[in-house]
């Protein structure tokens, strides 16, 4: 007993590391949110909740909340069911499934900055998408996708889906493959249709995993959009593609208001936790 407790000392280095580089900064966020701090080279002063009032009165913040909500409300409900169905299909090992799974897998290998560079070319005014539209005689639909306020945010969401769906499908396929196959086969022999087998037999078996992946994709979409936006639209035109995640970045580095940035950071964190709780509740009720 003493022996087995003492061995836990071996976790101390990793806990210390995690505390210094992860928990520390996370906690510091709440402190910085109460400071007036004009850029990293200046001295901060304590101003309490003044930043909060400022942020909540700012139209840019309202736009960012709206855009972030649109982003997750569109991306996640499209991504997860589509990925589940594709994953189920992959798991039935259709013809050419190897090629399919390599293709589906590949966005998972490409970093966010490379994804940004690929779509910088694809979506540029003379890029691939417009070239395709002109080739199809649909010139009128061609636009400067990233510079048009009506299409900037939808383009970013489309990129989220481009990389997220296939990758998530591969994960679902791997999970389904680890389940006993007889149940699904039995259902099919009983004459249950494909759609019914998928949702009424396969889905309940991996329900917990669906919930986990939904939460992860939600968090990733909500938190990490800053990088892609920085590379492609800088939140514009105007504030049309500014999300909360990008606002955290932009306020700190280009607009030099660290207090503001970190208030938004706290909001983002709370939204993340709230959203997770919501997903948990939603995906639990439905199948019980």
């Amino acid at each position, binding site marked *: 007993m003493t022996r*087995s*407790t003492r*061995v*836990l000392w071996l*976790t101390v*280095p*990793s*806990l210390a*590391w*995690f505390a*210094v*580089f*992860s928990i*520390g900064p*996370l906690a*510091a*966020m709440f402190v*910085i949110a109460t400071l007036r701090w004009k850029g*990293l080279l200046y001295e901060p002063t304590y101003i309490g909740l003044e930043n909060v009032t400022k942020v909540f009165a700012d139209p840019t913040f309202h736009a960012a909340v709206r855009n972030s909500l649109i982003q997750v409300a569109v991306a996640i409900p499209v991504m997860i069911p589509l990925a589940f*169905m*594709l994953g189920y*299909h*992959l798991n039935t090992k*259709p*013809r050419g499934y190897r090629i*399919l799974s390599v293709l*589906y*897998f590949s966005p*998972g*290998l*490409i*970093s*966010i*900055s*490379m994804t940004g*560079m*690929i779509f*910088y*070319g*694809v979506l540029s005014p*003379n890029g*691939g998408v417009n*070239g395709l539209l002109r*080739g199809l005689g649909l010139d009128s639909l061609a636009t400067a996708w990233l510079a048009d306020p009506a299409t900037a945010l939808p383009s970013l969401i489309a990129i989220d889906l481009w990389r997220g*769906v*296939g990758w998530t499908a591969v*994960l679902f396929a*791997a999970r389904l493959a680890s389940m006993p196959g007889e149940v699904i086969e039995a259902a099919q022999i009983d004459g249950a249709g494909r759609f019914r087998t998928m949702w009424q037999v396969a889905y309940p078996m991996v329900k*917990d995993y669906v919930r986990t992946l939904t939460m*992860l994709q939600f*968090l990733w979409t909500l938190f*990490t959009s800053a*990088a892609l936006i*920085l*590379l492609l639209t800088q939140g514009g035109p105007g504030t049309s593609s500014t999300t909360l995640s990008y606002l955290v970045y932009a306020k700190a*580095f280009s607009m030099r208001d*660290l207090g503001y*940035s*970190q208030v938004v950071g706290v909001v983002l*964190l709370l939204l993340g936790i709230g959203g997770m709780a919501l997903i948990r509740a939603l995906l639990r009720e439905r199948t019980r």
Partner: protein
Amino acid sequence: MRKHPLATVLSWLYALILAAPLYYLAVSALKTNIEIFTRPFALPAAWLWDNFRTAWETARLGQALLNSVLISLVAIVLTLALAVPAAYALARTDNRAARVITGTFSAGFLIPPFAALIPTVVLAIEMGLFGTREFQMLFLPASALPLSVLLLTQFMRTVPAALVESAALDGAGHWRLLTRVFVPIAMPGVVSVTILQLLTFWNEYLFALTITGTAPDVRTVQVALPALVSDATNLGVLAAGTVLTVLPVYVAYSLMNRRMQEALTAGAVKG
């Protein structure tokens, strides 16, 4: 097996949507801007291999690749050095303290590192490591620890208790148990964690951009490449640079795609 035309069509349609930008990237890498604009999906009329040299030299990709390799390697060694002993301890203990520690890492796994980007920049400045590769080497392991510890613990739990007891009777201490029994048995886990985290470190962008920075002698390849974007971007050169940067990952993938797929799916399975 019955055929499912709709599923087949949809799955290939999506595959096409995935492949099209990659194809566009590959052919653009060998073209001039004018040809990219006028014949976007055609094969290049004249294969412009020069784009690759221009990209390599303009973005100083050689140095950038070296920086990325250096950061990733040091970070992975540090990650394993921290995570393996911790996982060993957690696999061998089942009490409240152990559960609290596991719980801490589970919660940490959920929070994307981005959440604390700005305070981390402040930390780098305080430590006098702003604008250096060293900070990334120290920081990346911390962000990788939760998942690494949790995965390795799972693998180490599979070590049979009888084996541990007989080794302990032979007088084996923790060090010998760890290196002779636990690590060999958990080797697939160690490999998975290594692949998964190497890929994460290699692909990391925002922290590398804001902390290590854009100075050509320290910047990573992920930061170097976007430097090719300007008001008059040469899209062919940009595409060539992107191909060069993505290529090492694809080569690694083609060499060990089963292993890699296992590692990456394992990473997301642990919730």
